[in-house]
C-alpha cells in the first residue's frame, strides 16, 4: 500500500481501489445504469448480474490490453465491442446451462451486457493504454465495485418490496410489502436515495475538513 514508485506501469493499491469507491462505476460515474436499475429487484438477481458483468469485464480487459498494439485506431471501438459481444455470448450460454430460472429472471439483460457502457468505457480509457496485469487489477476493482453497487440496490429493494432477503422471509406474515419498490419506479428512487446519502456524506466530510483547516490556521 505504501509502495512509492514513479513507474507508470506500477500496480498500486489505487489501481485496484479506484473502482471500489473513488470512481465507483455506478455511484460516481453513473455508467452501466440499465442493468443496475432493471435487474436489482431481488438480491440474488443483482448478485448474478454483477458476477456476469465482472466476468465479461475481466475477459474483455485481458484481450483488449493484449491486443491494443495491433488494433488500428480508427476501428478500435468496433473491435472492442465485438470482443465484448463474444464474451457476452459465452456467459449467456453458461448461465442458461447452470440455471434456467435465473436465465429467465434476468431475461434479455444478460445479452444487453454488451451495451453496458462501463465495460466499453474501461476498454477505451484504461485497458488500451496500460499493461495487461495492471488492467486486470483495475478491472477486478471495477467489477467488485459494480457488484457491490448492484447488491446495495438489490438488498434494499428486496427488503422493502418483498420483505425478504435472498428469498428468506424477514418479517413474517404481517408485513405489508411496499410493492412499488420492486416495480420500475423503485429502482430510480432507491438509487436516487443512495446517491443522496453519498452526496450528503461527502459534503459533511468537506465541511469537517474545512473547519479543521481553519482551526489549524488559527
Amino acid at each position, binding site marked *: 500500500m505504501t509502495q512509492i514508485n514513479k513507474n507508470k506501469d506500477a500496480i498500486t493499491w489505487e489501481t485496484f481501489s479506484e473502482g471500489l469507491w473513488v470512481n465507483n462505476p455506478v455511484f460516481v460515474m453513473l455508467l452501466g445504469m440499465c442493468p443496475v436499475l432493471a435487474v436489482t429487484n431481488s438480491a440474488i438477481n443483482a448478485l448474478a448480474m454483477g458476477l456476469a458483468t465482472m466476468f465479461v469485464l475481466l475477459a474483455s480487459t485481458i484481450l483488449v490490453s493484449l491486443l491494443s498494439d495491433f488494433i488500428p485506431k480508427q476501428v478500435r471501438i468496433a473491435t472492442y465491442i465485438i470482443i465484448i459481444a463474444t464474451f457476452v455470448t459465452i456467459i449467456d450460454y453458461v448461465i442458461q446451462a447452470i440455471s434456467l430460472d435465473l436465465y429467465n429472471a434476468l431475461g434479455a439483460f444478460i445479452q444487453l451486457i*454488451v451495451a453496458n457502457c462501463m465495460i466499453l468505457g474501461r476498454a477505451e480509457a484504461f485497458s488500451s493504454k496500460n499493461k495487461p496485469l495492471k488492467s486486470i487489477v483495475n478491472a477486478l476493482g471495477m467489477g467488485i465495485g459494480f457488484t457491490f453497487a448492484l447488491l446495495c440496490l438489490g438488498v434494499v429493494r428486496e427488503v422493502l418490496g418483498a420483505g425478504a432477503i435472498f428469498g428468506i422471509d424477514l418479517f413474517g406474515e404481517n408485513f405489508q410489502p411496499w410493492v412499488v419498490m420492486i416495480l*420500475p419506479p423503485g429502482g430510480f428512487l432507491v438509487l436516487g436515495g443512495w446517491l443522496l446519502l453519498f452526496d450528503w456524506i461527502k459534503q459533511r466530510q468537506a465541511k469537517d475538513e474545512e473547519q479543521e483547516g481553519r482551526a489549524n490556521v488559527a
Partner: protein
Amino acid sequence: MSPDSLTFIFINTILANNFVLAMFLGLCPFLGVSGKLNTAIPMGLATMFVMLVSSLSAYGVNLVLVALDIEFLRLISYIAIIASSVQLVEMTLKKYSPTLFRSLGIYLPLITTNCAILGVALFQTFKEYDFGQSLVYASGAGIGFTLAIALMAGLREKLELSTMPSVTQGAALSLMLGGILSLSFMGFAGLGG
C-alpha cells in the same frame, strides 16, 4: 385488441412499456443529455433514426442467421449493424449540422452502447415479430424514448430556476425525477390491452 395488432404494439411501446421509464433501457443518454430541451430532442430523434435503421437490418440479418443455423452469432452481428448505423448518423450530422454535432459531443458515438437500440433488435427477435410489426415496434420505441427524454429535459430546465437543497443537485435529483416520471407512466399499464 389482439397483442399482435399494430396499433397495440405501437401504443404499448410508447406508453405502457416505455423503453426508458418501464424497461430501463437507454438510461445513459436519458440522464446524460437531458439537461437542455434543444439538445434532448435532436438526441431523441437521432436515436429513433438509428433504431429504425438497425431494427430493419436486424430483421433481415436474423432471417439469414436462422436460415444458416448460426443463431449464436446474433449478438455480434446485431452490434455490428448498430455500430455502422451510428457511424452513418454521425457522418450525416457532421456534414449538415456541425453545431448540433458538437453539442451532442461524446453521447453521439455512445448511441452504439445505448441498450435501447440493441433492446429493440433483441426483443423483436424474441417476440418473433414480422417485418411490419418490427417497423412499428422500432418507431414506437423511438417515439417513446424521445418523449421520455424531452419530458425529463423540460422538468430539469424548470428546476434550474428553482432553489434546491445543495445535496440534491446533480444525479440524485435526476434519478428522483425519473422515479416520479416512471410512477406516472405506470398509470398507462393495461392501456390498449
